């Protein structure tokens, strides 16, 4: 049996055993329900009409209120429920109107089409949405009056006010997709970051399984530590990635079906880069978490070694933000060739078309090489820490222990 067959057997066991465990099936179901709920539920509630009660005092209010409703509901689907409705409560005395406002019977009071009384302006608890709507409506009414009085001159004033007077010439050719790609790459990074934090600990505790149940000595009498470590990382990684991909797919389908927002169209190149680097990055961190797990003999100790790994992911993530701002800067270029940061930096640079082909290729080689080396180093640590049960083993001890 060749080395990879041993690794494959281990991975297969992980997928079949862990994959049908209750814990896995339940978390998968919960995740799926959760993302669908997050997308769909606001839609269901969002269908309702938002109702305001507005106090009115004096004359000239009706037109503004009508215009406000017209503006707010301009984008509603025909036949569907209106976005807002404003119920007008007429008052004949200012004091009574203010009294109603203070008693929260109305949300604002409009006076003679020229004054608004609110409980407080601005701030977190201010009545901003109704106020700004009414302001816009009042301005529109005023403009419309001017247009009606002055004819074409006013129309051209509005035209002037709403268009760019100076024409702009860009030295960089205009590419509408550029921004989209950047946003998508960034979303991809968020997903990678999330997946690393979510499944890293999974792998870490999974690695301790054989030590906890002490089956490890039987296994290592047959297969090499790197086969066991690699197989476990691959198996748990595949389960993690499929759960993650399933969840993302469910979210995308939910978005598509409900039409919450338009999904950006992706070209093949960007999609390939994203998927490729997601897998590279995931594997790399899986191996890191796996090697860290090799150091602990009990899952209780796992958290202490998980923390530094997560910090590495955080650093990579922040570097990618730097790269987004300055994709050809020194930080971005250095980050391209450091295996731990490359999965975060390269997709961003590629999306912004700011990475030479040789750098792209070299970063793949560096990252993959580091991952493969990580399996062997992790395997050695695993073997070294193996026959010392109890507590945590220092990296140096474990490394030396492997030759014992």
């Amino acid at each position: 049996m060749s080395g990879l067959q041993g690794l494959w057997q281990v991975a297969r066991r992980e997928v079949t055993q862990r994959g049908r465990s209750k814990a896995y099936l339940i978390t998968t179901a919960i995740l799926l329900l959760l993302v669908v709920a997050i997308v769909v539920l606001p839609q269901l509630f969002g269908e309702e009409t938002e109702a305001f009660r507005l106090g009115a005092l004096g004359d000239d209010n009706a037109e503004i209120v009508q215009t406000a409703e017209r503006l707010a509901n301009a984008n509603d689907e025909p036949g569907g429920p209106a976005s807002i409705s404003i119920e007008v409560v007429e008052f004949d005395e200012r004091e009574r109107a203010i009294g109603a406002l203070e008693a929260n019977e109305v949300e604002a009071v409009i006076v003679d089409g020229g004054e608004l009384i609110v409980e407080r302006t601005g701030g977190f608890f201010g009545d901003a949405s109704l106020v700004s709507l009414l302001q816009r409506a009042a301005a529109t009414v005023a403009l419309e009056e001017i247009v009606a009085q002055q004819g074409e001159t006013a129309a051209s004033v509005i035209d002037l006010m709403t268009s760019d007077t100076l024409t702009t010439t860009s030295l960089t050719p205009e590419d509408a997709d550029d921004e989209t790609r950047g946003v998508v790459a960034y979303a991809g990074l968020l997903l990678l970051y999330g997946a690393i934090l979510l499944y890293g600990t999974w792998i870490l505790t999974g690695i301790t399984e054989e030590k906890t149940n002490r089956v490890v000595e039987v296994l290592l009498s047959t297969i090499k530590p790197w086969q066991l470590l690699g197989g476990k990382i691959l198996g748990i990684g595949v389960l993690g990635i499929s759960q993650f991909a399933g969840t993302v797919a469910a979210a995308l389908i939910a978005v598509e079906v409900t039409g919450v927002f338009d999904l950006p169209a992706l070209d093949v190149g960007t999609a390939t880069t994203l998927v490729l680097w997601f897998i590279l990055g995931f594997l790399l961190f899986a191996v890191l978490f796996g090697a860290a797990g090799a150091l602990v003999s009990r899952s209780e100790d796992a958290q202490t070694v998980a923390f530094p790994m997560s910090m590495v992911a955080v650093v990579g993530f922040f570097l990618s933000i730097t790269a987004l701002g300055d994709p050809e800067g020194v930080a971005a270029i250095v980050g391209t060739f450091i295996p731990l940061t490359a999965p975060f930096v390269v997709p961003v640079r590629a999306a912004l078309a700011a990475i030479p082909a040789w750098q792209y290729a070299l970063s793949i080689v560096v990252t993959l090489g580091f991952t493969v080396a990580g399996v062997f180093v992790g395997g050695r640590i695993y073997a070294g820490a193996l026959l010392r049960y109890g507590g945590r083993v220092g990296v140096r001890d474990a490394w030396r222990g492997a030759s014992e």
Partner: protein
Amino acid sequence: MLLLRDLHKRFGDVVALRGCSFELARGRMLGFLGPNGAGKTTAMRSIFGLIRPDSGTVTWNGEPITAADRLRFGYMPEQRGLYPKMRVTDQLVYFGRLHGMASADATSSALGWLERFDLADRANDTLESLSHGNQQRVQLAAAMVHDPELLVLDEPFSGLDPIAVETMSGVLTEQADAGKAVVFSSHQLDLVEDLCEEVAIIDDGAVVVRGRVRELKDSAPIRHLELDLEGDAAALLQALEGVQRIETRDGVHTVIVDAATDVRGFIARAEEAGRLRHFAYTTPSLSDLFLEAVR
């Protein structure tokens, strides 16, 4: 043929092996004896590459042991352990496949062993649902599911009830008779004496006694003489030469004498005096040899 030659191994300040050597031919069963901490487990682990000796060689059929060789070895470590939540059959099939078996072969072998251990009806249960004794049986099956040529078992009898000991003994004998090389460590010396033709006794990292049990006993410098005598035995016993030790219990004297002692003459005189009720003259037990070797 398994050969461990002059193994040395040091863990920090602790010397685990200092010139450990023994050999084991196929079709033979070797009892590997020694006090706790003598180096038994370290020596066994060296066969599987779990530890790397500082010097010395471990060979199989005259060649250094490779990963491919180990696929035809079976190992039951002292640290028992399997996957608690995995079904018994799946577990055995997995170990079979790790040893390079095809899926179908591994399955039929796994089911065969479960049948042999009366566990066929538990085939689809998880390991953790089995009793301790049955888990031990599965552990043994896991070491043998791939029909290994060499079987190495570290303390296979520890913690077993008499029935399980019987099963284990039966299986090991069967394996040796089928031409497998079997080595196991144990502290149960009577059991080893019953089961094994050959033993190796390790003390302080080196094998101090090895050979066929029969020959070891014959060539031992001492003999056991059990005597039941009427009247005052003390005077009679004084006439016996080469006495090393006398233990008396319930009027029966167990005398350790030099192998060269003329026991025949002594018995004749005792019988002439009409004093001999019962006697037994035997080679020493394995326990005696063991204690002698490691004292």
